[in-house]
């Protein structure tokens, strides 16, 4: 059996098993075991993938398998991965596993919580393994809809409002997607039979007029999930209201679905239109990058700070993708993984700090380093990774992105690259401000003296996220080379058109 099927089967079995548990203890144990297996499966996948590559298997997608589903519509269940998808699966399984431990004490309706969380994860994994656009879209929606319940039931603050806003905006995005996907589907009739298969679609050169019509649908549709300005407004509210594990998963993995879809579907399949319209979206993403960073400066709620910072960082992903050269796109993928890990780390930490201090307002905290050194140090690591300190993942990602972007010779690209680099400085401002305010200095609230440091499951969750951040920062070459491999056909298709 294809190993990729495991990534859908394990979560489904886990969800079924949770149904038979009685309380929080059982539910979290089952989830941890299930997602632990998923993590192991991901590790096995990564190793066997690169073993096959080393052995000289140069097919574009490995572990390819294809089962006909709806015969008369030529819809298949087609799966396969390249190295980008493999890393994404790795990222997702780390974040999900850490997320289970971050919600170790979810007392209210715990079974339902874990089932919804894992359902969301199923959607994410299914999305990354799919090569048939129909199943890809199906999993995409499976990943989006549990968010409503997760935020609505277990969230905080104006949760009903945020949950509804997030759901409607993301579903509006899929409205655009459906049109774009159907356009590709019926457009493929020119090469014989209509198909949703990504590989077959990528061999077709669609007429430019048709590309112009459908590219915005697909790019904006996925872009909404990637927090494309001005359609990012669901993100701060949604992330701020969501419970910890959900913020982790959503900012860490789900937003990556947007960026991934943008290059894998929109840009890869419609390259001419992508080249033509890149400038519009480059301007929008530059705004995302800078505006998100500025937004984070003014916030007082820790979660809002991180949510705006996510808008900025995810904006950078789309920005780099639209630069359409190898280095920049390579940076974009590294940024996806790096941001996924560090934002999950941030949200995990914020959740843990909140569960102790019962406030997320940075004005009300101070000197926490003295009472919870482990959490404080982890927070600083996340912060440094976010502002791009060498030795951590953020540096590698942003460096590659900006070097790649600056390779363009023309004025337009250079100017917006320079504008986008501003975000590095602004990021430093809001990260250091928070670190200084809440971690360093004198203890502001004497009540906080009694608070304890991280418990074992919290430490596990944090270490699990910190390790890959450090690994990426110190040993970036392997990752970056494997990504370049997978990017080759995409970049070739994009640049052949110029």
């Amino acid at each position: 059996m294809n190993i990729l099927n495991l990534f859908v089967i394990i979560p489904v079995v886990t969800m079924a098993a949770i149904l038979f548990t009685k309380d929080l203890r059982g539910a979290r144990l089952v989830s941890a075991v299930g997602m632990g297996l998923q993590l192991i499966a991901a590790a096995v996948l990564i190793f066997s993938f690169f073993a096959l590559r080393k052995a000289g298997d140069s097919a574009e997608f490995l572990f390819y398998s294809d089962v006909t589903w709806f015969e008369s519509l030529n819809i298949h269940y087609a799966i396969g991965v390249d190295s980008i998808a493999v890393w994404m699966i790795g990222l997702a399984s780390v974040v999900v596993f850490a997320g289970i431990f971050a919600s170790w004490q979810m007392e209210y309706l715990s079974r339902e919580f874990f089932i919804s969380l894992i359902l969301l994860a199923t959607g994410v994994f299914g999305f990354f393994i799919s090569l048939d656009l129909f199943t890809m879209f199906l999993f995409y929606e499976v990943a989006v809809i549990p968010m409503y319940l997760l935020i609505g039931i277990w969230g905080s603050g104006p949760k009903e409002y945020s949950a509804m806003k997030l759901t409607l905006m993301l579903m509006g995005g899929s409205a655009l997607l459906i049109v774009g996907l159907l356009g590709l589907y019926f457009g493929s009739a020119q090469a014989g039979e209509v198909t949703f298969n990504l590989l077959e679609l990528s061999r077709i050169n669609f007429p430019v007029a048709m590309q112009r019509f459908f590219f915005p649908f697909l790019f904006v549709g996925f872009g909404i999930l990637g927090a494309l300005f001005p359609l990012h407004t669901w993100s701060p509210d949604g992330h701020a209201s969501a419970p910890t594990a959900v913020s982790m998963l959503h900012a860490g993995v789900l937003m990556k679905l947007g960026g991934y879809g943008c290059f894998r579907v929109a840009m890869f399949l419609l390259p001419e239109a992508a080249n033509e319209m890149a400038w519009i979206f480059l301007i929008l993403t530059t705004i995302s990058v800078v505006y998100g960073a500025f937004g984070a400066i003014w916030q007082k709620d820790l979660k809002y700070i991180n949510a705006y910072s996510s808008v900025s960082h995810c904006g950078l992903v789309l920005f780099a993708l639209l630069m359409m050269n190898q280095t920049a796109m390579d940076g974009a993928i590294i940024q996806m993984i790096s941001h996924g890990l560090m934002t999950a780390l941030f949200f995990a930490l914020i959740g843990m700090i909140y569960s102790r201090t019962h406030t997320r307002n940075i004005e009300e905290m101070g000197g926490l380093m003295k009472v919870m050194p482990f959490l404080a140090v982890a927070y600083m690591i996340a912060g440094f990774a976010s502002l791009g300190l060498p030795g951590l993942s953020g540096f590698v990602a942003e460096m590659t992105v900006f070097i790649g972007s600056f390779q363009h010779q023309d004025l337009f690209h250079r100017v917006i690259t320079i504008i986008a680099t501003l975000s590095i400085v602004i990021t430093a401002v809001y990260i250091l401000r928070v670190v200084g305010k809440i971690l360093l200095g004198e203890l502001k609230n004497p009540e906080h003296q009694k608070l304890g440091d991280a418990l074992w499951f919290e430490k596990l969750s944090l270490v699990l996220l910190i390790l890959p951040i450090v690994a990426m920062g110190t040993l970036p070459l392997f990752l970056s080379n494997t990504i370049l491999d997978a990017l080759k056909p995409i970049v070739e298709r994009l640049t052949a058109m110029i």
Partner: protein
Amino acid sequence: MRNELILAILALVILAAEIFTSAGNKHKTITWTAVLFAAATVAGFLPHPEGELFGGSYRTDQMTVVMKNILNIGVLIVFLQSFDWLQRKENHDKISEYFLLVITTLMGMDFMISSGDFLMMYIGLELATIPIAALAAFERFSSKSAEAGIKLILTSALSSGVLLFGLSFIYGSTGSIYYADIAPLVAVNPLQTLGFIFFTAGMAFKISLVPFHLWTADVYEGAPVNVTSYLSVISKGAASFTFLIILYKVFGELLSVWQPLLYTLALATMTIGNLFAMRQDNFKRFLAFSSIAQAGFILLGILQAGNLGSTSVVYFVLIYVFTNLAVFGVVSAVSHATGKENISDYKSFYLTNPRLSLTMLMGLFSLAGIPPVAGFFGKFFLFTSAASAGYYILVFIAVLNATISLYYYLKPVRAMFIDKTDTPIATIRTSLPTRISLVMCLAGIFLVGFMSIIYEFIHAVSFGL
């Protein structure tokens, strides 16, 4: 003809049984009828020959058999859900009336679907409509029920009149009432176009398309829950089937007329249905507008005028039967146990009735077209068929409408799962038939989507222009 014969026999048996059962044994009719009807439903799946009767005014092919089977399944579920309601004291002496009326209308719908000429279709239509008005007015002591009955009978009479007026134009210009004779004679000329538009208006009343939908909400609200569910699923499904068949088989030449016409109707129906559904608190009114919006989606499939279109419409209605009846099943269980029919009454429903809430949740998600439940597949294929005819903008607006509909489908979800109240609906003990019906619905909601074999089967027997 087998299905209609079985139904006729069933109706006669119920009638005879009514005479010979003593007052104390009346409630046994319920179980017996349900069992017999279940047998009839199963019998519908036996192989059936194609052919014509009465000189071509009645015909059967594989597609009509599929359509009738879908309706049978739906009616069976409705029967199972009406157990609790019929066992009430005030309904004690009306049990066989209920079954008789439902089975008669079902027979009428079967004749409509199998009709080979306009006369048969019209007889079927009347047979399917008039008893429903009696059903809507079933609760004799409720003024709202009586109002629903009278509203339904008046609008039906009007719409039948309009439809007949349109048909007279067609008959006058072609000299025949037989589909097979008319089809080659139909052409785009003012007389036939006008006739066709009147015909469409008449059908639009039955399917409750905007702007012919005004009766829907009041009738749905006033009628007993189980009658409402019958109206919104079976009656609407049968009318859509008939409309589909006649458009494809008779008015194929008028394609250039009815495509833009249906385009406009679909837009209006989806949008108005959705916008009005947002503000409803009464569950039956809510579902009334939701079913109007769903009818707009059905038009998207009909519009395609090919095999893809007819397949996706029939497939969607099949899913819609399970989906809508799942929601109605829960609403009817709650309504019979507590008398509460408002969305705001459902606060914290999940804490007291987790199973019913989850059933409702699945039903609502399926109505909204969220994967992995069947509604997603149904809607996606409707969009696919509209897109295959090149209507991308319509598809876009339709999907936006689906997003809007998500807003109101999430309202009951919010009430059940998120909102808190000190006085939630107490834990309800559902009866066995209700449970069976809900399990059937859930099985349908989960399986019909994933099991592509069902879609492929419908596709194999589908027809196009």
